[in-house]
């Protein structure tokens, strides 16, 4: 599903964000990625959906050789991955329904198929009845659900969540994590980068910890493990 072999990433300013990372994540896993800011966590996440290109090493995601892929094929990898962000990245002028439908429209899904899929996903993330609301009429947790719905509507094999609870209060954070666990239970691989110690410690999932650009720890049923 996801395989990295000795992946290095040096930015143009000379920063070594990743220094020889090798890891394997199987289909259907739920993985937390932890680490202090600047430890390589974000670069690791971005390299998976090819927002960043590795300097060295081999990366395989959903059968794509990500480090060798041509520019024109990048959209094809991204269609197999859903990405969720800390700041939701919703379009403020569009309704909830339109925000989710947007993900299908831009990959040229036939119109007939869009409405059914969108309503089904909104139901799954618990936003039934909010279809016509605008993002600013929703709470933070609800907005993050919209963004998860958008990531999910394309039926991707992997969901990557980059600090999805960073802007949310503890209770709401747990709701979002539960939702991601639900999604994982249905067979989608979930990779979640987070600073939330409490969630990581109580979830008892696989934890990959980054320190200075290398994986310092990879525990099957791990905890957050260090103070930051």
């Amino acid at each position, binding site marked *: 599903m996801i395989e990295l072999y000795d992946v290095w990433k040096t930015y143009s300013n000379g920063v070594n964000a990743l220094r020889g990372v090798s890891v394997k994540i199987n289909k259907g896993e739920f993985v937390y990625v932890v680490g202090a800011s600047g430890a390589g966590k974000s670069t690791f996440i971005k390299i998976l959906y090819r927002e960043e290109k590795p300097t060295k090493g081999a990366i395989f995601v959903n059968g794509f050789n990500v480090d060798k892929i041509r*520019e024109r094929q990048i959209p094809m990898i991204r269609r197999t991955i859903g990405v969720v962000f800390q700041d939701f990245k919703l379009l403020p002028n569009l309704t909830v329904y339109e925000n989710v439908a947007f993900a299908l429209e831009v*990959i040229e899904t036939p119109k007939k198929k869009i409405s059914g899929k969108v309503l089904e996903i909104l139901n799954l993330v618990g936003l039934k009845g909010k279809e016509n609301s605008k993002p600013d009429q929703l709470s933070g947790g609800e907005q993050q659900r919209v963004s998860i719905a958008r990531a999910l509507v394309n039926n991707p094999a992997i969901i990557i969540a980059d600090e999805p609870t960073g802007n949310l209060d503890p209770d709401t954070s747990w709701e979002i994590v539960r939702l991601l666990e639900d999604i994982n239970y249905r067979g989608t691989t979930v990779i979640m980068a987070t600073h939330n110690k409490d969630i990581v410690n109580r979830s008892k999932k696989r934890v990959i910890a980054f320190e200075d650009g290398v994986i310092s720890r990879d525990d099957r049923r791990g905890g957050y493990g260090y103070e930051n």
Partner: protein
Amino acid sequence: MTVEEGTAMRISTFNRHIREGFKNISRNSWMTIASVGAVAVSLFILGVFLLLAMNVNYMAQKLEEQVEIRVFVEELAEQQEIDDIDARLRSLNDVKEVTFVSKEEGLEALRTDLGSEASVLKGLDEENPLRDAFYVTSFFPRQIGQLATEIEKIPFVAEVKYGKDTVETLFNVTSVVRNMGLIFSVGLAVTSLFLIANTIRLTIYARRREIEIMKLCGATNWFIRWPFFIEGMIMGTIGSLIPIIFLGVGYWQILENQSDAMFFLELMPLNPFIWQLALVLIGTGILIGVVGSLMSVRRYLRV
């Protein structure tokens, strides 16, 4: 999954791009007006120069068709020699037409030309000062000089005359007008290209969040590019239609009011010319718009 489904999809996508393209245009209406104005002005100037150049060309062509070489025969020549010259002239490759004008005919023609003042020619019938002549036209008026030199070598040819200066001046004017017009127009076209690129950059900036999300959702670059492409095309097209209308109406007015004083300069008729001009201007306008849009989108696609 059928072919039909694929086609339906493409049409709806196409409609979407058109819709978004128009939305972009209304988003920055003032910048759009400025860019369209810039395109219109530069294409107008290009059009004026084209109009001038094509007119000068047209006149040159008209004059060329009238250019002929006058070959005067030595007075000592007998009928036999005159026939020889005629045969030699007709054997030359470039020669289109040969007309013999005897000195009597020449005098008669002169008399007709002078009309009421023909009396000055009185008494010349007895002692005709003119020479027998051949009027020769060429298939290649621009190389008429070479032909003239060749004709001069024929025995019993006294003199060869053709309107060398007129023809060459005209050709020089044509190329000057053409070059100046080209330099001006290219400069202005580049300016309007950057204005269009800048306007589109503004609409892209307004939509950068949308583009980012599109990229993350796996939209292809062309899917993102199309609306901006269409925006540029619309701006280029409108920017070319304005000068086409102005130039067309203006030139028509000039033709209508053309005074008889310009009898020797025959202006080009409106009909085939205006369509050629329209084609060139629309083509240039669209090219400017499209290149401008692609220039400005490039940077934003690297997400």
